[in-house]
């Protein structure tokens, strides 16, 4: 009896209360308009035929994906061979983004730790300072990075003056410059999530571990790091993913040799290549790679949590 009444109530609330659905509508509109629609559009474009100098012809084609994977010679009549060019671009992008993430982690973790252990008022000032560079446009920041690193820039001038080097280091137009650029662009994305977890960390746990004969290194490795790991992972994802698709830093700092996926895609829409389906296909491949990586990460942590 009671359950039946309960179910009736539930039905009434569920089926005859349209207000509930109207309230979710804005959220669905945002997700649909800004997330699902663009992705679907890109997905559809990647299976269409290219129009020269931009645009698409509405005709199904696998040409974009074929171009990405296979080399059929200049006139397209040779037997297909694996096309390494784009795979190399992807590989380089993953490497550069990985290095940038590592740099951010190495610098960002101690920074976040330092800030989180300051008194509350001082903390706010430090956090503000970390975000200050973000008030300047990314393009300008990247250009100024180039200015800093170039052969006649302040860094090399200083090193020459001090006598550490005999000739300028020639950092610009190398992979290192790209990594530094990405590192500079995304460092706050590493600092903030780590700060958030370290701030919540109970330092009595470190004391307890030290009390139980653990030295400083062991406390860090066995207690602090495992507990703040979610912040480290979140920061790494937040740095790695945008780094992977970045095109400003590689363009401005890396030169032609350090071409990354972002630049490749940019070329297809804004540049001379003008191949929308190919740009879309490259985007979809990039997206799939990121999603697969995140999926495996989520499954891994899910398992650890249950164990």
């Amino acid at each position: 009896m009671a359950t039946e009444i309960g179910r009736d109530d539930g039905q009434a609330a569920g089926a005859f209360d349209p207000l509930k659905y109207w309230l979710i509508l804005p959220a669905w509109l945002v997700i649909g308009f800004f997330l699902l629609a663009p992705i679907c559009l890109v997905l559809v474009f990647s299976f269409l035929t290219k129009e020269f100098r931009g645009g698409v012809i509405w005709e199904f084609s696998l040409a974009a994906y074929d171009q990405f994977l296979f080399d059929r010679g200049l006139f397209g009549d040779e037997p297909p061979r694996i096309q390494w060019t784009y795979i190399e671009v992807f590989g380089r992008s993953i490497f550069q983004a990985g290095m940038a993430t590592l740099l951010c982690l190495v610098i960002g973790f101690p920074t976040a730790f330092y800030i989180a252990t300051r008194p509350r008022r001082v903390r706010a000032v430090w956090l503000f300072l970390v975000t200050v560079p973000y008030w300047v446009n990314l393009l300008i920041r990247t250009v100024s990075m180039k200015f800093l690193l170039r052969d006649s820039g302040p860094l090399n001038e200083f090193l020459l003056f001090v006598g550490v080097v005999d000739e300028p280091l020639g950092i610009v137009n190398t992979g290192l410059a790209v990594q530094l650029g990405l590192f500079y662009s995304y460092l706050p994305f590493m600092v903030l999530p780590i700060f958030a977890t370290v701030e919540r960390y109970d330092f009595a746990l470190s004391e307890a571990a030290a009390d139980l004969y653990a030295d400083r290194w062991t406390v860090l490795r066995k207690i602090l790091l495992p507990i703040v790991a979610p912040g480290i992972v979140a920061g790494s994802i937040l740095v790695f993913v945008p780094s992977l698709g970045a095109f400003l830093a590689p363009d401005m700092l890396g030169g032609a040799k350090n071409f990354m996926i972002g630049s490749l895609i940019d070329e297809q829409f804004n540049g001379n290549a003008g191949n929308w389906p190919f740009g879309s296909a490259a985007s979809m491949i990039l997206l799939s790679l990121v999603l697969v990586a995140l999926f495996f990460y989520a499954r891994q942590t899910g398992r650890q949590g249950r164990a």
Partner: protein
Amino acid sequence: MMSQDQTTVAVELRHVVKKFGSFTAIRDAHLSIYDNEFFTLLGPSGCGKTTLLRLIAGFEEVTQGQVRLFGKDLQDLPPNRRPVNTVFQNYALFPHMTIAENVGFGVRMKGASQGEMQKTVERMLELVRLTDHAHKRPSQLSGGQQQRAALVRAIAPSPRVLLLDEPLSALDLKLRQAMRIELKQLQQETGITFIFVTHDQEEALSMSDRIAVMSDGVIQQVGPGREIYEHPRNRTVANFIGETNLLGAIVHEKSGSGATLTLEDGSRVMCTDNVPVGVGESGQVLIRPEKIVVSATESSSFGLHCKLASAVYLGTDTQYVLRTDGGLTLTARMQNVDDTAMQMSTGSSVVAMIEPAAIRWLADGD
């Protein structure tokens, strides 16, 4: 059964001073704690008792003086190299490890083999009946279970001295009372020196071999619970431990066995305690409420004539507030062995009888 070894000093504080900036947390603490002793630091919050514990554990450094452990100066020895373990107030169990891993942590860090560690962990979990919870996370345990896990985690590496920082304060009353007995038993079984910090006098009295009462960073008095309760050295100690009647008194007459005192309201009482001052001089006396016998009949010449201002029934006891004819207020407490309580109504005339031996002259009558 006192398993106290008076010959070996486990922890010795030598004129320890601890300052945080301009604030002095500990002023000249000078103290010996014996091996196998259950020693309690008792005091209100902010009195410096936890700071003292942290100095022994090594989380804080002394500003002046020395902390010695079995005759060895601990100066410059970090916490991980002191054979001392701590039970933290909020347990500080590692949230990402199982209970077994938590308990085994210190044993492993000390260099035991995997097998030895497992054996110790099993023994420890059995000791506090947590064997079934070995593979759970701390968050899956109740407060009492977490408390016991934290306790054996600290005992597992067999420390020479165990420091307990208000370990029972987060538990409810029933559990707290059960844990007192368990803690005391554990201390006697393991023979480890326990240094226990609490603000709860009942906790201190029920478990400790000796108690140090602290306030404002000063160790006020050190001694067995009975001594501190019966012979508090000063007002601070008297007020902190138990309920008290603190009264001003003037020495009226001195004899071989004691003195006659004039209380503030002019009434005279006999006192057999050692009164170190001469006739005519003033000081303070302490009378515990349970030493005052209230009766409706006038049967004793030592009795103070009073009016009953209030009687509060507290189950086992009744608490009486009395106003003497001279205007002094006294608190008395009597067990409800019969119906005496009900026979006396508020406003009625009663007599308060105080045994001469129950009146204590305060040595430091400040």
